[in-house]
């Protein structure tokens, strides 16, 4: 267990002017489950690979347990990594895959046997120790990859989208097991994913990245409730936050033809109103506007309705209860829960209120 500190960590590839990772600073606490979340190409995997020592660091400092490790090779950083592709050695049995990292570390053979058997038992791999990876199912391979990390008992666990290759049902199961594992080991874990559900459910904190930079850092619910900019607002949450352009006039905010009682904040007349699908209600009592129903998606527990508002460019998504009855084409009254809505600057995209 250890702390991991990134100080303006930067990665520039030799043949590119762009920074793959642009001055990322992050302070991962002892025993924390930190999720790096972002779309593909946002630099999250590169950041993880720099922590792992698989990519060189162009600028900035990386500290593991207070020691600067920029120039320390990965084998001496005492980290373990689980890869998206599992990266099991195809020519070795499950046992050898688990023992491979230990054999390099001057550990007695019977101690290796003991640790491999015990980890295999906790992960339900005891029956499979003699098999080769090609004779395992996806879920079993995933367990071996996980076991290979656990058996090393490293200071820091790194995960690079470890669940992406699993089918949906297995993914939910493994998600739960990883959370349990984190509680049991109490180890520092850094987890890269593009899946916001994984990030929300697993992370103690989420670090959202975009374009090589950290956009926002915080606990899952804080980030969800208080997105720093329109990117975070639209990236977190499914369906995403509705982002609607609006203009201030004398008494409030005008979005399309709707007039919303919102106090003016900051400079400029134009803003982007961000409102989550669950913060819009189908309600006839005192509606802010009416929307034309474009599509109805009943999901069982809830119903997603897609609306077109008069004179608004983007469709508006509303998350309603399962009892919602709406017909495509009809006009429905909508009420905005403005206390939970946010205003964003249309130029900088940062949140202003």
């Amino acid at each position, binding site marked *: 267990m250890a702390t991991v500190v990134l100080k303006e960590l930067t990665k520039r590839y030799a043949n590119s002017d762009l920074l793959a990772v642009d001055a990322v600073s992050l302070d991962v606490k002892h025993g924390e489950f930190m999720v790096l979340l972002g779309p593909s190409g946002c630099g999250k995997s590169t950041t993880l*690979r720099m922590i*792992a*020592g*698989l990519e060189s660091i162009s600028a900035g400092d990386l500290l593991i347990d207070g020691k600067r490790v920029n120039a320390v*090779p*990965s*084998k001496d950083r005492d*980290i*373990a*990594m689980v*890869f*998206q*592709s*599992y*990266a099991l*050695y*195809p*020519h070795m049995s499950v046992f050898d895959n688990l023992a*491979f*990292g230990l054999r*390099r*570390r001057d550990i007695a053979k019977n101690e290796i046997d003991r640790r491999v058997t015990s980890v295999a038992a906790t992960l339900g791999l005891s029956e499979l120790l003699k098999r080769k990876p090609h004779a395992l199912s996806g879920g079993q391979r995933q367990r071996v990859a996980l076991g*290979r990390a656990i058996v*090393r008992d490293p200071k820091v666990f790194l995960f690079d989208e470890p669940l992406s290759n699993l089918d949906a049902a297995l993914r939910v199961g493994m998600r739960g097991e990883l959370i349990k594992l984190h509680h049991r080991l109490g180890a520092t874990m850094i987890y890269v994913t593009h899946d916001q559900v994984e990030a929300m459910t697993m992370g103690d904190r989420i670090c959202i990245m975009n374009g090589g930079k950290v956009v926002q850092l915080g606990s899952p619910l804080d980030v969800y409730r208080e997105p720093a900019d329109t990117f975070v607002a639209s990236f977190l949450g499914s369906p995403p936050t509705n982002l609607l352009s609006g203009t201030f006039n004398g008494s409030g905010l005008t979005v399309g033809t709707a007039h919303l009682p919102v106090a003016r904040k900051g400079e400029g007349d134009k803003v982007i109103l961000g409102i989550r699908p669950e913060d819009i209600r189908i309600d006839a009592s005192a509606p802010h506007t009416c929307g034309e129903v474009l599509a109805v998606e009943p999901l069982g527990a809830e119903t997603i309705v897609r609306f077109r508002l008069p004179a608004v460019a983007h469709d508006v998504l509303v998350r309603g209860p399962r009892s919602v009855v709406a017909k495509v084409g009809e006009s429905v009254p909508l009420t905005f829960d403005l206390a939970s809505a946010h205003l964003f600057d249309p130029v900088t995209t940062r949140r202003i209120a």
Partner: protein
Amino acid sequence: MISRAFLFIVVAVYTAFAAGPFLWVATMSLRTTSEISLDHYAWPETLHWEKFPQAWFNSNYSVYFENSLLVVISAVIVLTLVGAMAAHCFARYRFRINRLLYFVIFSAIIFPPQITIIALFQTLVQYGLYNSLIGLTLVYIAVQLPLTVYILESFFARIPADLFDAARIDGYPEWHIFWKVSLPIALPAIATTVILNTILLWNEFLYAVVLITDEAKRTLPLGIQRFMGDQLEDVGMIATGLMIAIIPVVIIYIFFSEKLIQGMTAGAVK
């Protein structure tokens, strides 16, 4: 059913086409030249097994065989190791002149041996390697290296990079990663190059005939040529010599054929 029968006929015809000459030489190897000249295609009436020891001891075949074995085995060992290491580097490491070097090595393939052989002859004479088994071995290595690197590189390049990263994190230095990860995984491709190189070099004639003159340094293909005189060809003994030369190739092939097929079809299955 009809398609299976058709397939069977095709395979049978092909087998006869491929195995026919082999069987013919095999029957001739047990007949004397005078018997052969009476009837080229007859089945041996008496099996002249004594021709084999005769070729082995009286016609110096034991020496040729030993020379061939020495040259081919050392060349194939060096080829496999150097080729695998080069291929590993070309496939794994990004460095400035990676592709340029690869192209230079590979471009050597386009020159037919007839073009390079005079220059090679002069070079070997200058370095005192002409008419020596070491010289011939070095030439064989140089000639077969590009193809070996080419075959192995394409295989190494298909090994997922994550495996190397995983091994690095597991604590292994690059050298160990080559021996413990790359090489065992690439075994099918390595078997392919081993067989290919062994068969090609075992049968190699042109370089050997130009670069070797001593009777005691001849390889098997040159030994067979010895039975071809200006006036007379000892066909019976040529056949016996051929059989002696073929047997190791057949053994190698039987031993490695499964790996060879794996190597050739690698990538076809995930």
